């Protein structure tokens, strides 16, 4: 059966070669429900991989506790934790063929031959590897190797599945396809999964919940929608998607003022009128027109990306804003240097106190 995971006050301090120490993971508390897929997302060096490796048992926590269900796992060696990990580099055994790679863990459990055969065959089918059983790993493409790594994990029917940036070595198209497959497989099997990535699109598309980390600390925990719509701070706002962070002032109940322009917004923190706040304006929630809008600006740069056009607009008195316009082929492009008017969609503005 799959397990929930509970992390209580977990810390990891590495001695650094120069003498001092590096505090890689700082006092993290997390509850991961059974069967959920949770992503650890953050820039490199944020401690997400260290946290994952502590869950797998490859690193020992400096302090704090780790529970699978009710069981404390701190002292449990990695080979008896019943986790299964998909590594960034696939870590497929190069000296074993596909079948033997997948059968590796089962053989260590001394299962009967016929059972191993049956399980491996079924998992190879599930992962689209039927017909590759006798291949050697170096005859496989990167995507196929990643499937072998995945098959090798799920055949073990582990309590917890761990993914360490599993798709970062694949090309863009394959990456999208694989993340759909991983998500479907995970939901079908219902195994608690922790997925490390630095790619926010991957995190958004695959997760039940996202944990945003920075410098060893959890910045925010929430569903993809929550995190995108209501980022807890500037870092999260900027890291998840693109954001224009604009200085604003509380003008009254559900009203803010940006550079003298009053805008009604859905949610405003309980602050006195006149308090200075930041308004998060998403680029796709800004309307651009040739005349008539709340703000005026000059187009400084246009990038045509096919599905959208990405504008950099210098807004009078407010600096540069990013604006994304969808279906630009039909809407037509503003040229650099032309004057435009901008109108943020009030319902999408998020206020940070």
């Amino acid at each position, binding site marked *: 059966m799959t397990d929930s995971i509970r992390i209580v006050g977990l810390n990891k301090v590495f*001695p650094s070669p120069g003498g001092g120490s590096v505090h890689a993971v700082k006092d993290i508390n997390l509850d991961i429900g059974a069967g959920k897929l949770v992503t650890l997302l953050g820039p490199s060096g944020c401690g997400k991989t260290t946290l994952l490796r502590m869950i*797998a048992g*490859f690193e*020992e926590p400096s302090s704090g506790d780790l529970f699978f269900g009710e069981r404390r796992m701190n*002292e449990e*060696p*990695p*080979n*008896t934790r019943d*986790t*299964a*990990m998909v*590594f*960034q*580099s696939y*870590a*497929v*055994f*190069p*000296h*074993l*063929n596909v079948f*033997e790679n997948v059968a*590796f*863990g089962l053989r*260590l*459990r001394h299962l009967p031959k016929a059972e191993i055969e049956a399980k491996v065959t079924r998992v190879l089918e599930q992962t689209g590897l039927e017909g590759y059983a006798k291949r*050697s*790993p*170096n005859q496989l493409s990167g995507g196929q190797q990643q499937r072998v*790594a995945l098959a*090798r994990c799920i055949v*073990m029917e582990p309590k917890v599945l761990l993914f360490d940036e599993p798709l970062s070595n694949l090309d863009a198209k394959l990456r999208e396809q694989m993340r759909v497959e991983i998500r479907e497989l995970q939901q079908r099997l219902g195994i608690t999964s922790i997925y490390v990535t630095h790619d926010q699109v991957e995190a958004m598309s695959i997760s039940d919940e996202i944990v945003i980390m920075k410098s060893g600390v959890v910045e925010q925990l929430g569903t993809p929608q929550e995190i995108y719509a209501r980022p807890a701070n500037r870092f999260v706002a900027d890291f998840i998607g693109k954001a224009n962070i604009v200085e604003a002032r509380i003008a009254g109940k559900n009203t803010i003022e940006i550079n003298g322009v009053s805008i009604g917004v859905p949610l405003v923190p309980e602050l006195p009128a006149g308090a200075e706040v930041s308004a998060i304006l998403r680029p796709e929630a800004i309307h651009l027109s040739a005349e008539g809008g709340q703000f005026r600006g000059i187009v400084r740069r246009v990038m045509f990306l096919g599905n959208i056009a990405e504008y950099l607009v210098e807004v009078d008195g407010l600096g540069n804003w990013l604006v994304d316009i969808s279906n630009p082929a039909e809407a037509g492009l503003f040229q650099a240097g032309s004057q435009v008017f901008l109108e943020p969609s009030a319902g999408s503005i998020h206020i940070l106190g």
Partner: protein
Amino acid sequence: MSGTARSQLRLLARDPVLLVLLTVIALSIAVFVVYPLVKVFMASLHVNDVWTLDGYRELAERRLYRNALVNSLSVAALVGIISVAIGYVAAFVLTRLEVPGKTLLHYITILPIVSPPFVSAVSILFLFGFNGLVTRQLLGLNDFSIYGFHGVVISQVFTFAPIAYLSLRGVLASLSPTLEDAALNIGATRWQTFWKVTFPLSLPGIASAFLVVFIESMADFGNPLVLAGAAFPMLAPQAYLEITGSFNLSRGATLAIVLLIPSMTAFAIQRYYLAKRQYITVTGKPTASTSKIVSNPMKWLLYGIVSFFAVLVTAFYAVIIVGAFTQVWGFNYTPTLAHFRYVFDVGLDSVKDTLIVAIVSTPISGILGMLVAFLVVRRVFPGRTALEFGSILSFAVPGTVVGIGYILAFNAPPIILTGTLAILVLCFVFRYVPVGIQSGIAVLRQIDPSIEEAAQNLGANGLTTFRKVTLPLIAPAFFSGLVYAFVRAMTAISAAIFLVSANWNLMTVQILNQVGSGRLGVSAAFSVVVIVIVLIAIGIISFLINRWTRHTSMVRFQ
């Protein structure tokens, strides 16, 4: 700090098998590598039951010993320089130039590495001795003597230039040729490119190769014993003579310490200074490109030098083979099988003993080497650096020192091993394991650790991971460790000569005895048998390893 050590041990204790193994290995290294050295050192300070420095004072006062030190040092220095020059040219030609017959030349050049210790010395006697083919029969010289400085130098260059070649080959192969291309591209001449780019980049490698040859030359026992002659004392044979001839253990030990100091110094420089200064310009792209910095005439000149060395090697071996089938060299060239009859009749026991010692010590040495490499690279534990150092220390300790150490350490309680098979096996295992360890470490450092983590993650404990994943992945290093251990066990003399007994005798010692009593034909026949066994064994080891890793197409042997 002790807190870290404790937590490291606690982590390791989760894998009890590994912890036990580590303890056993650490203890054995202490007992079979370090303890004998300590015994030698103590014996050198303990003359006639008194603790004293008299041993060293006497050594400094007597001209014989002063000369022995100076002679050994100057031979080692000159042999180092010549060997590195030959090795560099050969490495450059065979890795960077487009010339015919590269593979053949490569194998001929490294052939002396697998040969028994007296091949070159006996060949030289056949060719340039009192009844030598060249000196006596061709040139008609009556008063030419090959014995002394020049004889030892020639013989050692022939023996050790291949080692310099192999090590410099690695250095030159890892230098990206695009650096030379870049220098030429911005207007340097070929000459400038070589002296300002290629040469400086290979300088640490050159120094390192020099020191390795220096260590080997200082430690060499066979060549000096045969070719130095009475008028040219050298340290290693002198220490042996003090013990077997004059039964003066403490004098032998003192000489051994004097022999040890330059070797250890060279080893320390090579390992802790030069190793950090090697320039390896790995780009991930194939670097096999032909050098453009050599003009055509220069290319063929260098090729000529390499070919000449290869011809010499071939000639030396041809002489040994012919000599083994010749009645009496210099007088009667009638073909005969008498020498081989002697080997398989009188000498049969030593053939069997040598094979048993080699067959027992090779797998132990091979697996121990890989295990130590695995522990050192992949596990964290207190004293890891000390373990690595202790396990490769014996590379720098001359065999003579080890041999004296073993008779001092294991001739009396608590551990009595003299005259047994065990003392020979233990000596060979710990003496020749460093090469396996070093190549294991080198290969393992290039293998993604997550492959082993994946095995653990799937339920394998430390030892299972080593057996089922690590060892197959480092098969090339395992192979070279096994081959090296076997070759050395078949060809070792300097330490073994102190440890053989009536029950356990070795072929190399037989060769030495035959040379000593002037029966060069028999010694040549013994050498041929050793070479044949070694070549067969390399074939068998390579076959077994290939079978064992037959799924592996990534792990291939050079």
